[in-house]
């Protein structure tokens, strides 16, 4: 069943047309990966879904509901969480304050908190520390943990492995697999190794258009296509 559908989505930023024609179907459950080179339009796609930039009317539907024209706040309240490329951590707030801000009522569900601690043990250790004092990997963990502190239907994650050490990336992949058991993830990535280890379905965006969409298994098997679309050969 399709959870999120983008149909011929176009987005302009100021006078520049950034997305020309983006059409993808994100099924419910698992990890859907959006791949693409720098500047291809991956981040713009996520921001357009969140309503941070306005996409063309009628081009984004979530469980059949049109999201275009909705305020970001209303989109978030539908159960869509966003982890931006810069992580969006509030450095002056403690880890606990960052987390509590993402709860609807300002209180934690103890079971959910235990689940978060199990996924990211470092966060429990630094619970009362200011977020600016965390390492890059810990900040990324906090950003993802904040997105799932309450059950969501869809999480949009923008390049979570950027600048992280390989060991941290492995931990992150394990956490994403766990999260994907209960929540759909739309993952934007440039790290193909990371993406292929997680994604069931995928699309490649190039110059604001979807250049390819299909299963990850088929894409991994087609090295010529990888080379053509991503400039790499695995």
């Amino acid at each position, binding site marked *: 069943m399709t959870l999120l559908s983008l149909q011929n989505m176009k987005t302009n930023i100021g006078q520049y047309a950034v997305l020309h024609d983006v059409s993808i179907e994100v099924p419910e459950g698992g990890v859907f990966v959006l791949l693409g080179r720098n500047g291809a339009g991956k981040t713009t796609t996520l921001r357009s879904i969140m309503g941070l930039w306005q996409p063309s009317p009628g081009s984004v539907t979530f469980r059949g509901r049109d999201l275009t024209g909705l305020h*970001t706040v209303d989109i978030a309240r539908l159960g869509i969480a966003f982890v931006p490329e810069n992580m969006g951590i509030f450095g002056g*707030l403690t880890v606990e304050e960052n987390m509590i*801000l993402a709860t609807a009522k300002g209180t934690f569900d103890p079971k959910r908190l235990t689940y978060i601690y199990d996924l990211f043990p470092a966060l429990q250790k630094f619970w009362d520390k200011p977020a600016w004092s965390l390492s890059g990997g810990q900040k990324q963990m906090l950003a993802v943990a904040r997105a799932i502190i309450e059950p969501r239907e869809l999480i949009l994650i923008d390049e979570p492995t950027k600048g992280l050490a390989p060991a941290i990336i492995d931990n992150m992949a394990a956490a994403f697999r766990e999260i994907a058991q209960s929540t759909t993830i739309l993952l934007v990535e440039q790290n193909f190794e990371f993406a292929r280890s997680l994604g069931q379905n995928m699309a490649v965006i190039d110059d604001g258009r979807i250049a390819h969409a299909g299963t990850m298994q088929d894409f991994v098997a087609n090295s010529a296509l990888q080379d053509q679309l991503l400039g790499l050969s695995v």
Partner: protein
Amino acid sequence: MTQISATLSRLGGVYLLPVAVSVIAFILIGAPSSWVTLTVAGLAMGMMIFLMASGLSLVFGLMDVLNFGHSAFVSFGAFIAASVLAWLGGWLGADSIALNMLALMAAFTAAILFGLAAGWFFETVVIRPVYADHLRQILITMGALIVAEQAILAIWGGSPLSVPRPNFLQGSWLIGDVTIEIYRAFAFLLGLAVYIALYAVLNRTRIGLLIRAGVENREMVEALGFRIDRLFIGVFMAGSALASLGGAMWAGYETLITPALGAEMMIVVFIVVIIGGLGSIQGTLLGAILVGLMANYIGFLAPKLALASNMILMMAVLLWRPNGLRPAVK
């Protein structure tokens, strides 16, 4: 060097600056009684400036709005409070402290209510159309300040207005050979109470948490499902009310006010916000105390440098810490 820096950090870091300034002033002034009098005056002045500047700092930090019209709230607060105090002159002059207090509370309440209402109007009509456009913000808010000054001229006239003080705040305490003006001590205590209340709201409530988060990253607060525009208007109204309260306190401090009060205070208020760091209440308090102390010490030691002292302080702080002493965003 690193060890010295770490030790200073443990002892209080930038919060030691007012102490350092006071110690240097003590050595230069020589006479302890003069030093105590000047220090109390500086702290009182700092607290009143803090009242005026704290709202601007939050508005600047949270909304990214350069509101040069902020000091119009200071002016109106001062004039409204002065009018209420003059109207309740009988209560002010009474021997009953309760009546004195009632008159003062009425003046402060009138100033605060004006600040809240004017803040709502200003944010909705003047500021909202120019979000994310600093040049237009500067032009329109400067224009609003001029309009406010002219409105004050039209309502209260151009002559300086005398501001009566309640009986219980008249005079001074004489402790040994140290003279402490009662109004200054009151101003300090009121400013401190407002700081504690603001600190508690910002650090112990969910609204405060949202404001602190919004100062850092508005977009992310919205992506978490909170309407930042409603916070904007609330913060703007509270900031305007605090400025009006600061103006009311300043009127009693100066005892003679003119329509140019807002424009005169605008520079000081902006210096404090820049020194302290945008969006930071602790930074604003620190900046305001430093400005208050420096103005009094320099005014005593080198009167000709008094006007330039704030600018010199700002330049020195910005060369050392370009984001201010205690910025909200790390």
